[in-house]
């Protein structure tokens, strides 16, 4: 079976020092892997390389059987990789409501969908993330947990097969963190996406993922 994600000997240096090197990793469909390691080990950088937002100095990145990055050359641009990404600071667009954000993503990533299909998908995603009544709210009008769910909704509305999460719960309190983990579990159960989850918290890694990949300081 083709791996959904394959990293082959990926290396990245910064300031003449390796952040990491020879990282090789496989991820099957519906798999969930936690990237753990201390600060400065390059967890976020590796995730950005997978997304195509950054390039490695060496190695290959394969996504769904297609060579997406070869060395420092991007062969498949980020928007053609069909990924979802939840940023550490969420990066919600301040000038768009929740629904407008989802509409923007769908109109960009799934242009073939009819208007009706798009509206239905948006409604469905808002329901899954319990944001139906907040669809016309701007990010600054949402609470911390609602913003988190809006970030999930935006990352998943185009139904990616792979979701990348960069320490998405790091700024939440313990109760909200637990609630968000449950939300993420429910979404995975319903939508069945694979996941790479960056965290520096070992307990969180074992709670959300079925495999752990450890990056150490080079």
């Amino acid at each position, binding site marked *: 079976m083709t791996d959904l994600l394959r990293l082959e000997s990926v290396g990245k240096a910064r300031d003449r020092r390796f952040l990491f090197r020879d990282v090789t990793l496989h991820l099957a469909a519906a798999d969930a892997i936690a990237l753990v390691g201390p600060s400065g080990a390059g967890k976020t950088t590796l995730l950005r390389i997978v*997304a195509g937002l950054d390039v490695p100095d060496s190695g290959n990145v394969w996504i769904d059987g297609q060579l997406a990055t070869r060395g420092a050359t991007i062969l498949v641009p*980020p*928007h053609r990789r069909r990924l*979802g*990404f939840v940023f550490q600071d969420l*990066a919600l*667009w301040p*000038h768009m409501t929740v629904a407008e954000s989802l509409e*923007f993503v769908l109109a*960009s990533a799934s242009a073939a969908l009819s208007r009706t299909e798009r509206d239905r998908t948006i409604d469905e995603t808002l329901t899954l993330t319990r944001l139906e009544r907040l669809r016309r709210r701007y990010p600054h009008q949402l609470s911390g947990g609602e913003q988190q769910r809006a970030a999930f909704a935006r990352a998943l509305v185009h139904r990616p097969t792979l979701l990348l999460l960069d320490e998405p719960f790091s700024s939440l309190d313990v109760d909200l963190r637990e609630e968000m983990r449950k939300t993420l579990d429910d979404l995975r159960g319903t939508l069945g996406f694979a996941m790479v989850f960056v965290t520096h918290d070992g307990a969180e890694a074992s709670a959300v993922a079925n495999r752990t990949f450890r990056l150490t300081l080079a």
Partner: protein
Amino acid sequence: MISGRGVAFAAAAATLVGVAVAPLVELVAVPASTGRWADYQAAFLDGRQIRLLINSARIAGGAALLATAIGAPLGFLLARAPIRARSAVRLGLAVPVVIPTYALALAWVFVAGGAGVVTRGFGSDALARLTYSPIGVVVVLALALYPVSMLATEAAARRIESRLEEAALLVAPATRVLARITVPLLWPSIASSALLTFVLALSDYAVPNLLRQRVFTTEVFTAFAALYDVSRATALALPLLAAAAIGGYLVASFGASILDTGRASGVTGVRLGRLGPIAAAVIALVIGAGVALPLASLAVEAGSVAAIRQGLDRSGAAVVESLMLSSVAATLSVAVSLVLGHRRARATRRMARAVDASLIALFAMPGTIVGVALIAFWNRPGWSGGVYGTSAMIVIAYMARFLPAAILVVGAGVRRVPRSTEEAAALSGAGWMRTMWHIVVPQIRGTLAVGWVLVFVLAFGEVGASILVAPPGHAPYSIHVLTLIANAPSAQVAALALVQTAVVVCPFAIAIAVRSFARLD
């Protein structure tokens, strides 16, 4: 007991009120105090006023649109495109904003005026007719003011959090991300800089005066200096006062801090690909039209280095006096703006917005109106009359015009100083003065230097207010040159304008280069 902070604030606030606010309030009250209430009505409803308003607004609107169309894309390119020698390019593009507008207009007259190079070369006065028309004023003002939009857009583009664009790049191509994410996030800064450009164009006196267009500022000058009709000058001033106040309020309301060139975030770069050579050509064209051509035109008209030296010999005293007066105004303005800028930076959000709106409105106030207001306020029996007959009035005029801008710049600098550093000093027992001197000032030294250079450069080229308040025998350099235009050979005028441009461009170049290397790059 009155604290040191209270004394400093009272002195600084009194200075701002005395030089900039009270004279304008008095000017507005002139018709009421003389019982001529109909003047208020005439200011807005008189047919001549309305025609003048339409002409002024048309020219200022055209200049703002053109300046924004040139400046905003350049600002974006400076922030995001892979430009070699970025600091030098930024400097080259930003220079026109400090060249006195009369020098720019004069340069274009030498190129495309009735006796200009182009007119003589082609034997046709078609271009000259265009130069001495509203279109000519729009083009010259746009070339003078596009750096406002450019610098504001560049700062805004650098402040956009890169994650916002990266989140969109995961689902959309770069062009769509630019249209739907980047431009909407830049829009408040672009709109507010366009508004500021509009008000600055509306308040310019030198360009419409030299290119013979009747707008509010030239009419105010004529009414006051030629006809000595204070009431008419006041009536003409009211619509401009209103426009400046509304403009200031709108600029502040957009919430985009256009004078805040704070620390840049990690920005998403753009690859220009085949558009690269076109972008380079546009940059070269703008530098050519805004800087190289005007300076070359002045240099050619001046004729030789000997002519420049001769001009300097004849006007040396005016240069020295102008340098001194501008330096005094800049130093006093920075001292006052340190106190008021700090207070503004630590104000509540609502208060800060109101203060910003007022300061922007004061900064945008046309020079001729400031001049008339200063005369009305200071030329009276008593101690103020003693001040009125001296060169101090020129310093007051410079401060009235540019102190508000210095406060905005210093306020933006203080906002970047963590409040906790002051609180820590206070907890250790330091008083306000000690905290300011040892904690705040060292953290904003660069900003204070930029504020000083800003006031110095603008004051050195100021015409509108100082031409009205300068005492006999003490004309600052720019006024000296402006009055020579009608009476001296064009070579001498060009040489003097070139010298003035060099004097303002050099400190500006050093300041922007230091700031660029220290902060933006």
